[in-house]
């Protein structure tokens, strides 16, 4: 959203290398490439978050001993990068036609110093915020798939942010539906 853009490419299910293949499910691999520089520790931890989120929704049991590779390239970063990556990943999974148990979307929530909750903060707002939450919310019952926090806050504030994020998730899922409709109605 806004100026942040991430390009996602999904390859699979394809033949997996013997060292990487799992006997009962598809092996999911996520590669995150930053705009400048080589991928570092931050990218690795983000890759792990994305991978485990995707593993929870992709029905890997249907494609054992295959590999699904997701490559994300950051084109520009103006805040809310992680949720942009999540949304890009989900749309790529949809576009590839992989069997999914649920859809997910990423929402970033910033808690400003005066206590107001801001959704989808820009980079500037992120820096000023007291705490930033990124939630991955599943389409089934709006449950929480993934959380990542930066900064500290009280428990009530987190619950409020979570509730706000769940409402925002509805808007994002509507966007998914519209995009897919547009793509396939040509």
């Amino acid at each position, binding site marked *: 959203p806004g100026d942040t853009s991430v390009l996602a490419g999904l390859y699979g299910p394809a033949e997996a290398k013997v060292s990487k293949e799992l006997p009962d499910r598809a092996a999911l691999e996520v590669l995150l490439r930053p705009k400048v520089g080589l991928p570092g520790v931050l990218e690795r931890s983000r890759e*792990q978050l994305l991978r485990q989120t995707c593993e929870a929704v992709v029905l890997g049991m249907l494609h054992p001993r295959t590999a699904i590779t997701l490559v994300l390239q950051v084109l520009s970063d103006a805040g809310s990068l992680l949720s942009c990556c999540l949304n890009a990943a989900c749309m790529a999974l949809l576009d590839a036609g992989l069997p999914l148990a649920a859809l997910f979307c990423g929402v970033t929530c910033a808690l400003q110093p005066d206590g107001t909750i801001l959704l989808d903060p820009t980079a500037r707002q992120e820096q000023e915020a007291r705490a930033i939450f990124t939630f991955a919310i599943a389409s089934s019952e709006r449950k*929480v798939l993934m959380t990542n*926090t930066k*900064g*500290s806050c009280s428990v009530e504030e987190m619950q409020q942010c*979570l509730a706000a994020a769940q409402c925002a998730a509805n808007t994002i899922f509507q966007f998914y539906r519209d995009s897919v409709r547009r793509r396939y109605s040509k």
Partner: protein
Amino acid sequence: RTVEPLEYYRRFLKENCRPDGRELGEFRTTTVNIGKCLCSITTADGSALVKLGNTTVICGVKAELAAPAADSANKGYIVPNVELPSLCAERFRSGPPGEEAQAASQFIADVIENSQMIVKEDLCIASGKLAWVLYCDIICLDYDGNLLDASVFALLAALKNVQLPSVTINEETGLSEVNLKQKNPLIIRKHPVATSFAVFDDTLLIVDPTAEEEDLATGTVTIVTDEEGRLCSVHKPGGSPLTGAKLQDCITRAITRHKEVKKLIDKVIKSITPK
């Protein structure tokens, strides 16, 4: 147990207990050794060894001097590094750090940053010229699940043990003089404690998972709280979806755990500071 591990576990979970006899909400015995007399690392400025059941993690903190970065002239650095050497579990091979080690290092760095455990301005000696760099090496010696909890605990214990020698800058020569005789302890503002949970089948939550339980779990959640009951980090890397209420349960449990751990740390520190 080896043929159908999931079924074996399910039978126990139905009775609300686990194969090693623990309740669902019970932690393994935690022991911590701090300092040069009890702990192994004599070359480090601060060290601690934590055992959470079988999971053994050792943390060594080394303090060195460096020039601060150009844009933050009055801030020092803390560099955590988590290593999972191949001796701790068979699934880790030797070579460059794997994804788990890197993700754990990032997590620890985030916790330090979020909780403001050590304020970087405290590490500055002379603005723009000299600051402390704390290299925290966290090495896992035996991996039996729940690495993040043990690492955070070891880091906290080691940092409490660190004694920084006082450094003065000689006005005439502009060089720094380190006074090893006069040592000050590190100022630790907050005491974050991590609590990890494993999620089974989207509903059941167990605390402090062993390696076997982690493999069978469908998801994990780690919550870091500090002493005021504020959340420093909620780390839930994917896995089965949880409702907000379940998350709240985890948080309440984490706050209770924090109190237990704090008592343990205080007790150990009191026992090693006689002089």
